[in-house]
């Protein structure tokens, strides 16, 4: 179908395709792909119901969803080479830069200029900043998350813990108490995409992962972060759960605490066994502080990557992109996931939703802490992510005890992969 459109655009078989297209009322088809179908399936089902009602002449074709953000970016890079790009794609906030650098994502400014009442300032500034390159907006944030704590209140109560921990030291104490009841202490999201939790521990001390284009783990903050992980994993006796196994264990009430992205609040509430109460609370603080100083923003943004020259199709793609990132789309994000919608107005649209769903309010409260989720620059960006992942895994499985040695090895290996000059 896509090639057909291209031929039409080139004017080769314009007459051929214009005939049938006109017959069914100028229907335009656009293609779209997004990551994490487990989290967003219901969200898009909800959005599309309304979108199809309001825009009956636009057909949105959903491509196979991406497994995670890395997969999403990779798929787009491959599709760019094969000239098979969709029109709109959802990309991890930390992976937008590479698509802009390679000229695959297109600036949204020309479209925004034609909109009379488009309020850029309706978006949370920190979110929009993540999608702005050279003062041009390339992506509109769709869903934004921060790391939070999930607590099984029944396990906590059985262990005699009345106050939800606000520091990691308190988390470790809680783990020890929980272990005495025969349950497991916690599952901690070190394996979340893009070294997100490592960056969370760095930001907790107000230290960025990348500073002046240099890997910033070599200082004291880096060592603190590694030591904090070791203390947590050892103190809690955390098992080396895969993401799926860890979530299953928490949902089935075998694990007392889970530290994870707020994005899963929706799916945990839907899937958990019925016999326990879930409560969420802000991410605990490091080095004795009661709260982090900052936190990395997770989530994804809609990017315009259409290679179509058909003006109608491009306009339709923009209409869709605008629809899902504002108003109704944003409200659906809040209702079906644990993500925070990107526009301030959306929170008002859904009225007393948060009063009825306090578990989803935790992330909203953490919004002032929102900071950059760094991607590593250069061709080796994804390889660097994996190197850091491997280093964290070594702490989890107890492969290494000397954190200074690990820091040294890690910094050396990452710097060898960073772009020179």
């Amino acid at each position: 179908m896509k090639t057909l459109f291209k031929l039409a655009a080139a004017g080769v078989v314009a007459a051929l395709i214009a005939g049938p297209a006109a017959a069914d009322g100028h229907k335009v088809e656009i293609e779209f792909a997004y990551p994490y179908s487990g989290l967003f399936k219901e969200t898009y089902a909800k959005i599309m119901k309304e979108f199809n009602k309001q825009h009956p002449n636009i057909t949105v074709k959903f491509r196979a969803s991406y497994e995670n953000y890395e997969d999403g970016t990779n798929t787009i890079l491959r599709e760019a080479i094969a000239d098979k790009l969709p029109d709109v794609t959802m990309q991890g906030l930390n992976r937008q830069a590479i698509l802009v650098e390679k000229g695959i994502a297109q600036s949204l400014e020309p479209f925004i200029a034609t909109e009379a009442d488009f309020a850029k300032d309706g978006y949370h500034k920190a979110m929009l900043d993540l999608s702005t390159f050279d003062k041009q907006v390339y992506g509109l944030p769709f869903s934004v998350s921060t790391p939070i704590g999930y607590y099984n209140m029944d396990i906590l109560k059985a262990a005699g813990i009345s106050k939800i921990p606000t520091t990691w030291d308190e988390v470790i104490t809680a783990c020890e108490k929980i272990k005495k009841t025969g349950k497991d202490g916690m599952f901690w999201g070190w394996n979340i995409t893009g070294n997100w939790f490592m960056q969370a521990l760095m930001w907790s001390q107000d230290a960025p992962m990348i500073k002046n284009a240099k890997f910033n783990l070599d200082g004291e903050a880096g060592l603190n972060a590694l030591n904090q992980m070791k203390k947590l994993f050892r103190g809690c006796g955390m098992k080396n759960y895969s993401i799926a196994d860890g979530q299953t264990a928490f949902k089935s009430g075998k694990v007392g605490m889970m530290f994870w992205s707020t994005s899963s609040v929706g799916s945990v509430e839907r899937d958990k066994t019925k016999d326990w109460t879930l409560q969420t609370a802000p991410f605990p603080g490091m080095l004795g502080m009661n709260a982090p100083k900052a936190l990395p923003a997770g989530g994804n943004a809609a990017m315009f990557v259409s290679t179509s020259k058909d003006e109608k199709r491009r306009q339709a793609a923009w209409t869709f992109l605008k629809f899902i990132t504002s108003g109704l789309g944003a409200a659906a994000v809040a209702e079906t996931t644990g993500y925070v919608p990107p526009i301030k107005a959306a929170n008002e649209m859904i009225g007393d939703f948060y009063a009825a769903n306090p578990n989803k309010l935790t992330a909203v409260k953490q919004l002032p802490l929102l900071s950059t989720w760094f991607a590593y620059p250069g061709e080796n960006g994804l390889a660097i992510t994996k190197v850091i992942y491997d280093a964290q895994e070594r702490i989890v499985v107890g492969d290494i005890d000397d954190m200074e040695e690990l820091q040294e090895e890690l910094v050396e290996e990452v710097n060898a992969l960073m772009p020179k000059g």
Partner: protein
Amino acid sequence: MIDTPRPRGLFKTGHAFVAPAVLLMILILMVPVVVAAILSFSNYSLGSPDFDWVGVKNYSKLFARSTYKKMLTASFVYIGVVVPLSVFLGLGAALLINSLGRFGNIYKTIYFLPVMATLLVMAIVWEFILHPDVGVVNRLLALGCGTFAETILSFGWLPWVDPATTFYGHGCAQDFPHWLGSKHTALGTIIFIGVWQGFGFNMVLYLAGLTSVPRELVHASVIDGADSAWDRFWLVTWQMLGPTTVFVVVITTIRSFQVFDTVEALTDGGPVKTTYVMMYAIYEKGILQNLIGIGSAITIVFLLFVLAVTLVQRWFVERRVHYT
């Protein structure tokens, strides 16, 4: 063979008939291999406009970096265990089934089921079975704790064994292993699944091989004094199965080199690279991280290994196991 002169026209027609197959082989087999070989000397990354030639740097990395040492270790340990185990289990199952009159087909079906099942789907089932908390295996093991089963299985009844230090005793006191998440058990678990999945195929090959063992030969050996079953097996059956065994070993070796789906679905090469087999390394570097240069280098090394196995097989077939 008598060389009869052939008319030239026939010769040409022959070439014409072979041409499509040769052309396709060059296009879909040789060209990609050559391209991979060329790319393995570059640092090409998918999507980047330019790249540099880096000589043999990718290859020297393969033999210097600890990551790739772990890769080779994982691959060869996997092959070294899976090949003999699944060959002997296959042979054993085939012999047992062959000696059965009535229920042979039932066992054939049971042992062959894992071969027919999609390995990826099975891997997901294994993931549930082996879940550290809610998995069937650990739940079953935990059931025995505190009962007579613990006393027996922890070997506490042996005077020289401290029950707390044995596998079962330790599991009851602490936790049973996190089969796929611990660096001590992950590769073993993947190997177990590999054997479970693969030996049924070898069984079928051996069953086919057994039909070609002439009964007369067995009878003759009895007359010549091969009284025990072992003698008959060793002197007749095993010798006649020679060609089958070479084929089975080669096929199993190549299949073990290619192990990928279980690793991708269950461990992603972890924990700490203990299950980082070659196929997964190629996938991770070339597909997940877009680093085509190093990915191609691993692919070429991989192909060389498979080529070596194939050459060894040819040598065997031509020299030793030639009966006809």
